[in-house]
C-alpha cells in the first residue's frame, strides 16, 4: 500500500560522522544515500524505491562545503541549495546558476535539498543540469575501497546521466562534489524555464553560455531539459554559432536548429508539439541574455 502520510517499507538508518564510514555503509546491497530527502522520500512513499538501508550524508564535514580552489567552484554533496544560491562567489560569478537554483521548489525545499541530489535524482526536467552542462561542470564520484580508503574519480556531467532517473553511479558509489571552472572575463550565461505555475516542475528549461571575442561568438554552449531522456546539449546550435559575428538574426537562425538536437515526448506537464515549438524561442532568449552578460553589444 502506498501513502504520502506514512512510510510502510522498513529499512535501517545510519548517520555516519565521516565520509569513510558513510562509504563503507553504502557498500551493502540495497543501501542508498539520503541527503535532503525531498525526492527520495516521495519515491519511497509511492513504493518506487525500496531501500534496505539509508545512509544520511548531510552534516558530514568532508561533504559540507562550497569553495573556490584551483580555478574552480567546488560544491560538496552536502551543500544545501539555499546556501549555494546565496553564496557570494556563486552570486557574483555564476548568477545564472543562482537563478536556476532559485526556481527549484519553495524556500523549504531549497533549505533541505542539495545540488548533488538534484543531479542524482536524474530527472530529465531538473533545473540545474542545463546550466551546469553549459558551464562545463564535472562530477566527482567517491567510493570505499575496503582498507585502501576513499577512491575518487571525476567525469564531465554530460557522461553522468544514462537515462530518465538513471546515472552512472553503482552500488557503493556517491557524488562527492560538483565543480565548475571559473568563467573567463568575456563570458556570460543565462537560464530560462517554462512551467505552469512557479512552483511546478519545468515543462522545458534551457541554459546558454557564450564566450565572446569582441563582436564574435568564440564558443557557445546550449543545453536543454525535459526534451529528451536526459538533459542534453544542443551541438547543432553550438556549431552554427562558433566563430560567427553577432547579430540578432544569427541567434534566431541558430536557435531554430534546436529541433535537430531534441526528442521531446508528451507527458503530464506538456506535449511534444508544444516543447518543440517553444524550444527555439527559449534558446534564443537564453542566448541573447548570455551575450548581454558576456558584455556583448546588441
Amino acid at each position, binding site marked *: 500500500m502506498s*501513502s*504520502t*502520510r*506514512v*512510510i*510502510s*517499507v*522498513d*529499512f*535501517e*538508518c545510519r*548517520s555516519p560522522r565521516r565520509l569513510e564510514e558513510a562509504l563503507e555503509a553504502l557498500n551493502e546491497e540495497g543501501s542508498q544515500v*539520503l541527503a*535532503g*530527502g*525531498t525526492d527520495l*522520500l*516521495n519515491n*519511497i*512513499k509511492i513504493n518506487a524505491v525500496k531501500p534496505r538501508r*539509508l545512509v*544520511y550524508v*548531510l552534516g558530514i564535514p568532508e561533504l559540507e562545503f562550497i569553495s573556490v580552489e584551483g580555478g574552480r567552484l567546488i560544491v560538496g554533496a552536502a551543500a544545501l541549495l*539555499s546556501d549555494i544560491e546565496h553564496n557570494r562567489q556563486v552570486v557574483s560569478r555564476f548568477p545564472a546558476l543562482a537563478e536556476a537554483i532559485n526556481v527549484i*521548489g*519553495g*524556500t*523549504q*525545499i531549497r*533549505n*533541505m535539498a542539495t545540488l548533488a541530489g538534484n543531479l542524482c535524482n536524474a530527472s530529465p526536467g531538473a533545473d540545474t543540469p542545463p546550466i551546469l552542462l553549459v558551464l562545463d561542470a564535472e562530477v566527482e564520484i567517491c567510493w570505499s575501497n575496503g582498507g585502501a580508503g576513499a577512491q575518487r574519480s571525476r567525469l564531465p556531467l554530460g557522461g553522468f546521466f544514462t537515462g530518465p532517473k538513471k546515472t552512472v553511479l553503482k552500488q557503493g558509489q556517491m557524488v562527492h562534489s560538483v565543480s565548475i571552472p571559473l568563467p573567463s572575463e568575456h563570458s556570460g550565461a543565462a537560464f530560462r524555464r517554462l512551467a505552469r505555475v*512557479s*512552483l511546478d516542475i519545468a515543462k522545458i528549461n534551457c541554459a546558454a553560455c557564450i564566450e565572446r571575442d569582441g563582436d564574435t561568438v568564440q564558443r557557445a554552449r546550449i543545453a536543454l531539459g525535459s526534451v529528451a531522456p536526459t538533459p542534453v546539449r544542443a551541438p547543432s546550435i553550438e556549431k552554427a554559432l562558433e566563430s560567427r559575428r553577432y547579430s540578432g538574426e544569427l541567434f534566431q537562425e541558430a536557435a531554430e536548429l534546436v529541433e535537430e538536437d531534441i526528442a521531446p515526448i508528451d507527458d503530464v506537464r506538456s506535449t511534444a508539439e508544444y516543447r518543440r515549438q517553444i524550444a527555439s524561442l527559449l534558446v534564443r532568449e537564453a542566448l541573447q541574455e548570455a551575450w548581454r552578460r558576456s558584455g556583448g553589444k546588441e
Partner: protein
Amino acid sequence: MKTAITLNVNGKEYPLEVKANEILLNVLRDRLGLMGTKYGCGIGECGACTVLLDGKAILSCQTLAFTADGKKIATIEGLEQNGSLHPLQQAFIDEGAVQCGYCTPGMILSAKALLDINADPSNQEIKQAIRGNLCRCTGYTNIVRAIKTASKKINDQGRE
C-alpha cells in the same frame, strides 16, 4: 530496529526511540501531541507541515525523524510567549489573514524564518519566502499584509 534520538522542540528536550522510517511530522503530531503542524499533501508541494529546523523553514513531512536528532525544532505551539501571541500570530488575526486556518501554522513559520533574517522585507521578498506555502482560501493579499504589519510591530518593539 529503533534509534535513540533527542528532539529539542520549542526549547524542550524529548528523548525518543524512533524507527528509521518514522516521519518527523508524525512524531510531532502523534507522539508529542503537537497538532498545530499539519499534514497536507505529503509530497512537498503545499507547505502545511512547515516547521523550523535550526531556524530554517523545512518540510516535516519530508524529513525522517532520525535526521533531526539533536537539532532545534520550532513549531507553531512554541511561538506564544508567557500567554501572549507572537506579533505574527496577532497580525494574522488583525489583518484577517486566516480563513480555514489549515495553512496558517506553516505560513506563520515561513514568515518567522524570513523576519528572523530580514527585519523589514519588501512585498516581493515576503512572496518569495511563502512561495512554498499554498493557501486555497485567502488569495494571499491579507497574508502578505499581515507579515508586513508584524515586521513593523517587531521593529517598533525593538526600538522601545
